[in-house]
């Protein structure tokens, strides 16, 4: 660790392709970049250790995106129809189709590498959890794909928190690398690259979690998902889409165990406290709110949330998932526990501690706090170019998955408009982005100069919270209360409170309005102002400080988009109380935004939705 007051050591890394984030999308990009770019220098920068980084740190129990084209189970068009439906009409269908047609080859690679996939001994086919999901023994899902990554790239730089992208010296709309710092030794990292793929995470802890004390770590998306995917891009001026499309998930209460296997594979049902099914009885009121979307099959994820919320608000909760009716054999009991031991171990801990025997008693379900991400049943993220053979001109400006910034690509949670990617689809999108990035590199082989003043400016900025603390800390005796210093955890609590109360979090029953959003933006501006007084006692706090900065950028984009879309497109994810209905006539379009780094101004506007077929 660098001594207080000492200048941090600088490491300069020159490469052709820089991949930021070694999660699912980043690992897919690493593998594919090496296949097509044998002679290129490919480098991964990752804030943790790739064997257990990102959303799949614990493992998973299912691959949620697999077509099964070889058995003619599904074709890519079927998947596009499903996603179109689930997103209430709005997704980039060219991107969705592109993932669907390639995702099977990703899953077949995983199987060859040694990922245990449940197979039916009679038919030889993978065991389906649902129409799109297959079951896996996925405890080591992440270490397995990390092994392929280590064999693919030249260097993996771990424990590097990437804080900013670097613009080219002569063109602010061309990426030239990234900067960050080592959380271990406090050194400053400058990555100079000719192309960059951002595969950093979506975001938890934008909204106040339901569990606020020690249990704040038990968010559904991991606490280390800090929205870097969005913050890095926004500050480079990249166009963003669907940032208002944030995710609320139905989960087991407290432990946040996912419900997929229980509903789809084990066929458990959910009822209100009186044991009644409530979805059909609430249909008439739903039709009034959303029109024909109420009868879409399967019912869109947000609408199922909506019905559950209404039932709870009507005093008929808690909602119960009847695990006790389906765990009738030891095999099923084992499947039920494995589902959580492989991906949400905290749920098993919750059952053990609360004395819940799922084969004897039902479990409570609850709606989570909102998350901002692009790979699940939502699609916030960057506006990217689509594949060459099928995207229309307005969705295509050259290279697949390139953002509106030259040389800057995205994949996984980073890319907006293409929902339902999950682990396999995010990996696939990383592969797509990398193949395109290699093509970009062949067309643009020259090094991209950067301005020394830019690099120096970032260096000062990155370490400012350490220096601020060194100067201000001694002015006050021990403790955490200081008139001139904001600590990262204090700033995070403030951010979560603003978003919860003004941006439609759990305490507001996901509801917001123009007046609330405008006030919320005012409070965010004050928090942004206070960020210049951020204090970090050590490198761990410095990482938390930059994570807070990235969350703040993400939060601002969410509020601005939510303010712009004057309708309630996704009831159950959020409500504009002043515009409570789906309004296809005005709003069946994408809400996009850009931030101009030079002026600090945001523009929010619409882009047309085009059906692929």
């Amino acid at each position, binding site marked *: 660790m660098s001594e207080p007051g000492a200048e941090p050591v600088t490491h300069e890394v020159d490469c052709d392709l820089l991949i930021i984030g070694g999660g699912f999308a980043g690992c897919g990009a690493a*593998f*594919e970049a*090496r*296949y*097509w770019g044998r002679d290129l220098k490919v480098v991964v920068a990752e*804030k*943790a250790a790739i*064997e*257990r980084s990102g959303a799949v*740190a*614990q493992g998973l129990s299912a691959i949620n995106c697999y077509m099964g084209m*070889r058995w003619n189970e599904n074709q*890519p068009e079927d998947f596009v129809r499903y996603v179109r439906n689930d997103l209430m009409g709005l997704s980039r269908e060219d991107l969705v*189709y592109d993932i669907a*047609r*390639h995702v*099977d*080859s990703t899953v077949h690679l995983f199987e*060859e590498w*040694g*990922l*245990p996939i449940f197979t039916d001994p009679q038919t030889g086919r993978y065991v389906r959890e649902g129409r799109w999901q297959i079951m896996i*023994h996925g*405890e*080591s899902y992440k270490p397995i794909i990390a*092994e392929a990554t280590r*064999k*693919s790239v030249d260097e993996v730089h771990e424990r590097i928190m990437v804080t900013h992208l670097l613009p080219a010296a002569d063109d602010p709309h061309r990426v030239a690398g990234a900067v960050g710092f080592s*959380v271990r030794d406090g050194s400053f990292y400058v990555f100079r690259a000719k192309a960059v793929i951002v595969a950093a995470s979506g975001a938890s802890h934008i909204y106040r979690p339901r*569990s606020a004390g*020690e*249990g*704040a*770590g038990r*968010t559904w998306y*991991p*606490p*280390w998902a800090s929205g870097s995917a969005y913050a890095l891009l926004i500050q480079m001026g990249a166009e963003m889409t669907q940032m208002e499309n944030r995710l609320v998930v139905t989960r087991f209460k407290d432990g946040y165990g996912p419900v997929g296997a229980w509903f789809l594979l084990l066929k458990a049902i959910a009822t209100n406290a009186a044991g009644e099914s409530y979805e059909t009885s609430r249909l008439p009121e739903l039709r009034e709110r959303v029109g024909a979307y109420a009868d879409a099959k399967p019912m869109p994820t947000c609408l199922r949330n909506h019905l559950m919320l209404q039932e709870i608000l009507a005093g008929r909760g808690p909602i119960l998932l009847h695990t006790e009716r389906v765990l009738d054999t030891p095999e099923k009991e*084992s499947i039920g*526990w494995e589902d959580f*031991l492989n991906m949400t*171990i*905290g749920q098993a*801990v*919750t*059952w*053990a*501690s*609360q*004395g819940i025997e799922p084969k004897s008693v039902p479990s409570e379900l609850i709606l989570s706090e909102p998350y901002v991400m692009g790979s699940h049943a939502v699609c916030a993220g960057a506006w990217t170019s689509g594949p060459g*053979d*099928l995207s*229309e*001109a*307005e969705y295509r400006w050259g290279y697949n998955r390139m953002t509106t910034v030259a040389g800057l690509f995205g994949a996984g949670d980073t890319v907006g408009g293409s929902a339902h990617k999950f682990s396999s689809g995010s990996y696939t999108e990383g*592969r797509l982005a990398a193949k395109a990035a290699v093509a970009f590199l062949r067309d643009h082989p020259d090094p991209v100069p950067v301005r020394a003043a830019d690099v120096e400016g970032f260096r000062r900025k990155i370490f400012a919270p350490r220096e601020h603390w060194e100067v201000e800390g001694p002015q006050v005796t021990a403790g955490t209360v200081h008139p001139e210093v904001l600590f990262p955890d204090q700033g995070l609590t403030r951010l979560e409170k603003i978003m919860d109360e003004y941006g439609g979090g759990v305490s507001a029953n996901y509801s917001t309005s123009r007046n609330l959003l405008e006030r919320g933006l005012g409070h965010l501006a004050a928090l942004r102002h206070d960020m210049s007084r951020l204090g970090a006692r050590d490198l*761990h706090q410095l*990482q938390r400080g930059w994570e807070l900065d990235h969350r703040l950028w993400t939060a601002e984009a969410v509020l601005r988009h939510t303010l712009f879309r004057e309708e309630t497109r996704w009831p159950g994810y959020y409500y504009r109380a002043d515009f409570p209905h789906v309004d296809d006539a005005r709003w069946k379009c994408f809400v996009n935004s850009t931030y101009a780094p030079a002026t600090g101004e945001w523009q929010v506007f619409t882009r047309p939705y*085009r059906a*692929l077929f």
Partner: protein
Amino acid sequence: MPTFVRTDKCKGCMECVRICPSDIMHIDPEQGRAYNIEPAMCWECFACVKACPEAAIEVRGYADFAPLGHSVQPTRTPDKIEWKIRMRNGDQKEFTFPIRTTPWGSIRAPQEGASPSAEARSGELLSFEPDYLAVEALPTLPRRPTTA
């Protein structure tokens, strides 16, 4: 406090420090042993628990909603993971699941084999396609004329 470390077992080897995705397992400079510096940012992901060679790390459920008197503990070997669960009332459960079907280190690197052709580079196929799709050709759709 989600993870905690047994004093008599920890050797200070730093494996947990290396692996924790949240950067919250640190070594206490006075004791030379690991501890969780920020329990409210612990996901109970068990990455550190699985990685510790001394089985020194355990998890006590989040104090806000998990009553005391339980334990969930894994033992991970190269091909399987065994879980021992102790419920609040003392009941025990054990489960074992496979984790990998091939030896660690056996993955074929993407650069093994011939370089892709120029034609493949400019097309839509990804590495090892169409073979790994297990269908004859990559699906596509006729491009629709650009709508004004």
